């Protein structure tokens, strides 16, 4: 009876029993129970995760489950870290949900419906079993359960907006496309390896032909990439994340997306045990494109949750860069570096989960308080909802990869790994020499645009003056929501100042992967983050302390010099105008205008300006309205043509069933003749 047993038992039992109870209890108690159950399931996940990270291998076969297959579970360090991640997110989201799904005084909250409330814990549970699955059948079953439950949750508000239905369709379609790829890949893998348990796959992987190995890898890359939101399979994220209830968005964007990364690492680096260098390059390239494209879209987005969704694509892209580079260097035999990069990817997964949870929950609070997702209409929330603003700020700091935020730490490790790809006197291979600098450039550009993005999100969304009455009359969220965000923000802070806490665990995770086994890049990290094998050290804690100390010092000195007379509150200088009004403020659109202009060729925004003059004269303008849309160019380039092709195929096929019985019989007659002739000829 290990910790893992306890944890997973809690997860399964809690989710099933909880869902049953939630389905039966009356509406007004549902939020509390559902939230507690979800959080409880999350706790189970954390326990199991800790158990897994402690390193002891754990395997169970649940008897009598899954027809024509077996339910095989196994937890190692790699599973552990993702169990921990998902569980932690679930705890925050669960607590938050208690407040978020409660009915508002006047209208009832769709997220409080029986279905939604009962599905949330099931969704979390199915996510938690993904890293624990240890056979192809088991993995695919829980993977699909995860997809189904999340789909149900995305559709929660289908009555309110037609866009929800589309989001659901896109999500369903993309996730099923992903499943097709994964299923094909793993099934073929299992067939060639001669067994469907992960042990069998590990054992058999070596005997696969290179072509087969690569086929499997590419297929699972496509499949898991679709779930992770990597370009060009990202199209569902900016639709599904905004439409889903915010605590679900957090679960999907912070936890579920990370499971795509898990799948990639598990199959590509554990079961297949790594491969040729071009695998790494492929992942690296996709990651780079995703990171750039994601952050570009985010930097010009005005819908807060859409912005966060694109930022997810960006961060997953960064993880992919880490994984890909690790693959490249492992293939080149530079294990130490591969270890650092893989650790960077994993660390970034954790950090991203932490700050993205805060951000999505924060966006949810804003949405609940104002009913708005549009940054152009928000503003001035810092006075109405100070705590939410503060917590969102912590998340934004992390997402902008600025010290002392947590995102900075993992990006630093990533950069360290990349810049050490060449050493004095040793000429690097051309491929590396070309790809790595580009990768660094991408990471750098991503960092810069990331800063711009979150300055916009925080500055325009929460500071300055309200741009709409809804924003002006917002009210601070109830206690549970603040607690939920607080939990997530706290984890951000911990990861930011003491990343070394997870260092040992990450090293154990790397030991699961043959290519980076025993590299232990973070082994001798404590207060200072020291990367084993390469010369690189940085101490987030000391930097934070240093900044605080110098702030105190400055404050003291200034007080000495200038005293501390209270500042006189004065009206701002409104460009000579009579009174400042919020219409003079910059909106998110205008804030991003210079960037939009700079990247015009990539984004190709669509403007429409309509000028309505007064009736008297065409020269006296009454009002000018300016609208800007920045459509997803990659999507526009790929999907409409594809869908159109299928459509025309379908329309053409109608002729095959034109209702004429003679034609139907003719099918048979011709079929028969052909078959008989073939027989006659081949005999």
């Amino acid at each position, binding site marked *: 009876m290990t910790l893992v047993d306890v944890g997973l038992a809690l997860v399964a039992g809690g989710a099933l029993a909880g869902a049953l109870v939630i389905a039966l209890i009356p509406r007004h108690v549902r939020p509390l129970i559902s939230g507690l159950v979800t959080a409880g399931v999350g706790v189970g996940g954390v326990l199991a995760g800790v158990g897994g990270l402690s390193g002891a291998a754990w395997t169970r076969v649940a008897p009598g489950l899954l027809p024509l297959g077996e339910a095989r579970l196994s937890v190692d360090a790699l599973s552990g870290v993702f169990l921990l991640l998902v569980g932690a997110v679930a705890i925050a989201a669960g607590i938050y949900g208690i407040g978020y799904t409660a009915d508002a005084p006047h209208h009832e909250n769709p997220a409080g419906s029986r279905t939604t409330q009962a599905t949330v814990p099931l969704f979390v549970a199915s996510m938690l079993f993904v890293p624990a699955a240890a056979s192809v059948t088991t993995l695919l079953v829980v993977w699909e359960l995860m997809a189904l439950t999340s789909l149900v949750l995305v559709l929660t508000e289908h009555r309110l907006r037609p866009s929800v239905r589309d989001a659901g369709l896109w999500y369903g379609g993309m996730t099923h496309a992903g499943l097709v790829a994964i299923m094909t890949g793993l099934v073929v893998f299992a067939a060639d390896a001669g067994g469907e348990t992960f042990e069998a796959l590990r054992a058999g992987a070596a005997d696969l032909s290179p072509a087969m190995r690569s086929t499997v890898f590419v297929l699972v890359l496509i499949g898991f990439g679709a779930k992770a939101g990597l370009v060009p399979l990202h199209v569902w994220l900016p639709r599904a994340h905004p439409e889903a209830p915010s605590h679900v968005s957090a679960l999907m964007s912070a936890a579920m997306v990370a499971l795509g990364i898990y799948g990639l690492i598990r199959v590509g680096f554990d079961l297949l045990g790594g491969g040729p260098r071009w695998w790494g390059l492929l992942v690296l390239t996709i990651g780079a494109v995703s990171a750039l494209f994601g952050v570009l879209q985010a930097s010009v987005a005005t819908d807060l949750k859409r912005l966060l969704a694109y930022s997810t694509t960006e961060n997953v892209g960064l993880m992919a860069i880490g994984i890909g580079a690790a693959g490249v260097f492992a293939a080149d035999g530079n294990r130490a570096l591969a270890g650092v990069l893989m650790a960077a990817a994993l660390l970034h997964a954790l950090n991203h989960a932490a700050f993205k949870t805060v951000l999505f929950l924060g966006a949810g609070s804003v949405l609940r308080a104002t009913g708005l997702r549009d940054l152009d209409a928000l503003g001035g929330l810092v*006075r109405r909802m100070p705590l939410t603003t503060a917590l969102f700020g912590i998340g934004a700091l992390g997402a*902008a990869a*600025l010290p002392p935020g947590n995102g900075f730490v993992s990006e630093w490790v990533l950069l360290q790994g990349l810049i050490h790809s060449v050493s004095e006197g040793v000429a690097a291979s051309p491929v590396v020499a070309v790809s790595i600098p580009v990768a660094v450039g991408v990471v750098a550009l991503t*960092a810069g645009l990331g800063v711009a993005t979150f300055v916009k999100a925080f500055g325009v969304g929460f500071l300055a003056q309200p741009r709409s009455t809804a924003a002006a009359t917002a009210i601070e969220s109830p206690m549970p929501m603040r607690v939920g965000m607080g939990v997530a923000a706290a984890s951000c802070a911990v990861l930011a100042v003491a990343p070394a806490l997870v260092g040992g665990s990450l090293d154990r995770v790397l030991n699961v992967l043959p290519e980076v086994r025993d590299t232990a890049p973070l082994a001798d990290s404590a207060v200072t983050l020291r990367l084993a094998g390469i010369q690189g050290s940085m*101490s987030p804690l000391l930097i934070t302390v*240093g900044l605080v100390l110098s702030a105190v010092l*400055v404050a003291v000195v200034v007080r000495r010099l200038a005293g501390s007379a209270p*500042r006189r509150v004065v009206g701002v*200088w409104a460009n000579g105008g009579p009174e400042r009004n919020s219409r*003079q403020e910059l909106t998110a659109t205008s804030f991003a205008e210079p960037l939009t202009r700079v990247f015009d060729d990539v984004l190709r925004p669509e403007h429409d300006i309509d000028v309505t003059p007064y009736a008297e004269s065409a020269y006296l303008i009454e009002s000018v309205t300016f609208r800007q849309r920045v459509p997803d160019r990659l999507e526009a380039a790929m999907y409409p043509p594809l869908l159109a092709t299928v459509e025309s195929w379908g329309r053409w096929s109608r002729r095959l069933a034109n209702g004429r019985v003679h034609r139907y019989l003719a099918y048979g007659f011709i079929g028969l003749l052909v078959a008989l002739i073939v027989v006659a000829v081949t005999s």
Partner: protein
Amino acid sequence: MSAQETVFAVAAAGIQVAVVVMGAPYLTGLMRQVRARMEGRAGAGVGQPVRDLRKLFHKEATRPEGTSVVFVAAPLVMLASAVFLAAVIPFVTTVAAVGGVSDLFAVVAVLLLGTVALALAGLDTGTAFGGIGASREVTIVALVEPTILLAIFALSVRVGSSDLADIVAGTLASPAHVLSPASLLAAVAFAVVIIAEAGRLPVDNPSTHLELTMVHEAMVLEYSGRDLAMVELAASMRLALLLGLGVNLFAPWGVATTLAPLALLLGIVMLIVKVALVGVALAVLEVFMAKLRLFRVPELLAGSLLFALLAVAASYFLA
């Protein structure tokens, strides 16, 4: 590292802070004076910025209605980040009291932190100017960032570390490297970066209040009294820091590698001299330069990015 050494190291850091805080305004003054003279004006004298600061510190601070804590905190954060950097960057000596704080990525990021704080403050005022300034500043930062990181990459390649102390020490150990194509290209890129970050011509004109052009000034428009003083001090410190960083990265001669008092003294002198020289040079250049249109700036930065990329490539192939 023994306790005594630690004390010395801390002291050294203190000295650096003192030098930068004291010297920065004079540097600004010096540059203005040089420009004035070359433009045929008398100029206000090298000490003018210091006098301005003293005056501002004793003026009443105001705060626009409806601004939040962010507006008040921004100058503090900005100045604090500058002070912190003054302490950790190896200007005078490469020996640091604590490791892991002088990593170049971290340094740049902390610098960025100050910029972001000011940009948020600009937005917080809710005026058109504040917003425009913030928007432009952030755009520039977003484009400068990659250049910096790539330049760092190019520099760190030759010593296999991105820790400033290591880089400086490495350059001191083998000066020939400075003339390697990689570091020359990186130097050019870095120069552009410094100009952009410090808000100098042709990217931004520190002495304009013209709506169309101003970036930095637009953000600080609502500040007054001690807050304005802090912002201005921080601004000139950032300039000093960047110049200091630049010279020490490419011409670190004189920087002490020990804690010997004499060495430290030499380091201080050398630092002041080098920074002053570079500052004068920059000022001279600015005289002959016009401010770029904001939307031509990206081209400039793209150029510097290219240099940085070439630098990196060079460091790979010509290593």
